[in-house]
């Protein structure tokens, strides 16, 4: 297999990863249930605004006293559909060679899902992604889901979710503004050579405790999960016990052009096998801060998100390592919403190695600078049936990653059309 084919597969794999980790970009069935527009909850779908975050934190309820009676609304069906497809162009080149260039229409994504509330306390998600492959026709259906008990003892501070868990991140990989393969690289970055492909943005099996105050200005999310997922060989989903915590505090400013400011702290202590079985677990740690600002106008804001975190994998997880691998990740995202229908977005991620795990790795090895630029325009066919076009351009610069240890650039342009119903 040539290096070009390997790179092609790698890019395709990145797309598949991004798609696979996007379980719910928008849920039009909620719009039907409550008679609201998608834009009530989404800054630009799938990114939630404060109102949408509070709705999600409440277990997809507004606590109006008629959340259940809304089920009798003839316009309400608890199912939704989401589909996308588009043209994609990729190019990978080093400072001396073009290693790969291709374009075309890759396999899209087709999803059928349901978010269901059962009484006052139980919410659940069922999702069926239909993956249609190229070449020999293949169709795969998987149903990652969760079930959540809302408001233990009547308190909004105690909710429990069990199943396929999405970590509570300042920028959700599952609700990214674009579905191109660049994704949220800062979350999915893994130290070169690490046997674990642990990613903050991947859904993992486990359970999650979360809570919030009335308007979700103060929140916490605490997850206990299995890093490696459910391992059939171990007959135990807890073979790699791990924990994740995110705390956020939002301040509303009264007289400045900065409207809301949110400060967050997050960290994870994940474990993974260093050997053939779970008797030798080693740790992966990610600790960081996030800072979000909403500027100018609440309904059409400029939304800035900055995050910084440090990641560490124990040496035993890295082939040939003589020390722990340590990296720093910094990410700045700017979303500007000039109108309710249009969103301009950009993101810059800088990942730098602080401590090389393998003695022979030096300099900028492992570093990665990723840039993303695009816009999303949403056309409202009806208020519960929307079509969006979201052209984006992504650039990943890896200063030391080419075969001759020169700069490796991966570029991607993607023009998908999304439909949610």
């Amino acid at each position, binding site marked *: 297999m040539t290096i070009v084919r390997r790179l092609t597969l790698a890019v395709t794999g990145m797309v598949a990863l991004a798609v696979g980790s996007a379980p719910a970009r928008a849920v039009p069935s909620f719009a039907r249930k409550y008679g*609201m527009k998608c834009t009530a909850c989404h800054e630009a779908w799938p990114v939630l605004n404060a109102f949408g975050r509070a709705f999600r934190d409440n277990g997809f309820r507004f606590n109006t006293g008629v959340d259940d009676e809304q089920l009798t609304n003839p316009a309400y069906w608890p199912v939704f559909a989401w589909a996308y497809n588009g043209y994609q162009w990729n190019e990978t080149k080093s400072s001396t060679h073009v290693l790969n260039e291709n374009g075309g229409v890759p396999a899209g994504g087709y999803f059928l899902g349901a978010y269901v509330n059962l009484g006052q306390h139980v919410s659940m998600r069922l999702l069926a992604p239909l993956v249609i492959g190229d070449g020999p026709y293949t169709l795969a259906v998987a149903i990652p889901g969760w079930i959540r008990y809302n408001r233990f003892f009547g308190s909004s501070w105690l909710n429990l979710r069990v199943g396929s868990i999405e970590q509570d991140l300042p920028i959700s990989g599952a609700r990214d503004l674009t579905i191109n393969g660049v994704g949220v690289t800062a979350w999915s970055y893994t130290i070169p050579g690490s046997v674990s492909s642990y990613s903050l943005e991947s859904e993992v099996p486990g359970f999650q405790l979360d809570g919030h105050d009335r308007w979700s200005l103060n929140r916490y999310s605490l997850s206990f999960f299995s890093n490696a997922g459910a391992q059939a060989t171990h007959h135990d989903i807890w073979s790699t016990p791990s924990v994740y915590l995110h705390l956020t505090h939002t301040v509303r400013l009264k007289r400045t052009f900065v409207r809301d400011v949110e400060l967050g702290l997050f960290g994870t202590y994940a474990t993974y096998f260093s050997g053939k079985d779970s008797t030798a677990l080693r740790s992966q740690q990610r600790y960081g801060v996030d800072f979000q600002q909403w500027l100018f106008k609440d309904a059409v804001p400029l939304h800035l998100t900055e995050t910084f975190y440090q990641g560490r994998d124990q040496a035993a997880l890295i082939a040939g390592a003589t020390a722990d691998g340590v990296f720093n990740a910094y990410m700045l995202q700017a979303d500007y919403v000039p109108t309710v229908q249009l969103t301009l977005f950009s993101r810059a991620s800088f990942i730098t190695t602080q401590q090389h795990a393998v003695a022979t790795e030096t300099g900028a090895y492992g570093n990665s600078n990723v840039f993303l630029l695009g816009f999303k325009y949403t056309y409202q066919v*009806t208020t519960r049936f929307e079509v969006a076009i979201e052209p984006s351009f992504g650039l990943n610069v890896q200063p030391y990653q080419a075969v001759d240890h020169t700069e490796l650039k991966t570029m991607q342009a993607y023009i998908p059309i999304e439909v949610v119903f």
Partner: protein
Amino acid sequence: MHRAVKSLGIGMTCALPFVTLASSTYEPATTGAGDAGNGKVVYERYCIQCHGEQGDGNGESAPWLVPKPRNFRQGMFKFRSTPDGTLPLVSDLDRTITYGLYGTSMTPFGSIEPRARLDVIAYIMTFSPRWQKEPRATPIVIPPETPATTESAIRGEKIFRNACSTCHGDGSGNGPMATKTIDAWGNPIPPANLTRGRTKQEVTGRDIYRTFMTGITGSPMGAFAGAIKPDDAWDVVHYVESLGPWKESNRALRLAAATHYGDTAATPAASAAPPGATAAGGSGDGGTAGMSANVMKLSGFESTDPNEIDIHVGDSVTFKNDGGGAHNVVFFADSIPPGAKTQLQANMRNTSGPLIGPMMPKEGDTYTVSFAKLPKGTYVFYCLPHQGKGEQGTIVVQ
């Protein structure tokens, strides 16, 4: 010349405090609202789906919603801290937006940034000219709560039976009118079930007091301010709080509910005025002062007494609460002579909506309407609280 300028200067200096005073006493109804331009975008994002692009309550979701979304173009708002018939304060609208209306599709929008809420309020105010024409109303005064005792709840029960049970029944909203009440927009509006511990906007005792005294504009829930003493109103509040798990309910109130209410069950509804009720007739005219010779009595039966009355242009008709709970007078817009609506509306005082007279909460209250400048013809009216009983009457202007 110099003297004239000096005189003018002295005159202006003297006048300035009065001008300043006059301008400082007038506050437009829009006082405290935000930027309407920003509010338009907020409205488009969060509100347009139900309240409609024109603010007329005919958004895409409106057909499925009960109760129907508010029509902002009429400038009528149900939940206020201000007297019946006046515009609400910005803080009243912000309260509704922030906490929603429990049991309806009006969801709590408190997670929206506060300035955005004030902005959308400013935009909502552009839908009705009332906001530009009328001054900022003065909210009613809510006096300190009287002790929430068993005795207070028992006293409140007697008033409740007299003034509220026609619609609210035993408190669960099962009064004889419960299935028949409609609001000023012709939509069904069942009475609140007070046994659940909270209603649309009422959670605390002060909330209950406020709604009891200011009424719910456009609905059969009349305003009792002026018709009842504050202490008596607190008794009603305590009775309501004894009916269910209200936030401020206490053991003494629950004791009243458990052991005492049966003692007064024999009290005939509307057989007596509420204890301590003043002679003033709420939003109506009050007592018999100024009563015209043409009197039509309302007592909750199918027709008024008399059912029909003949008068002449320029005469007045006095409507009198003759027992049977609260009454009011609403003229059918399509059962009056063509072209009479505007003048009739002008002749009706203290209206709470188009051709909707104020509540006469207790027996003996009156409300007088002048038929000056009105065309000859037949004027048919009904009583909003007793519409389901078919209580209506006819006035023939000759």
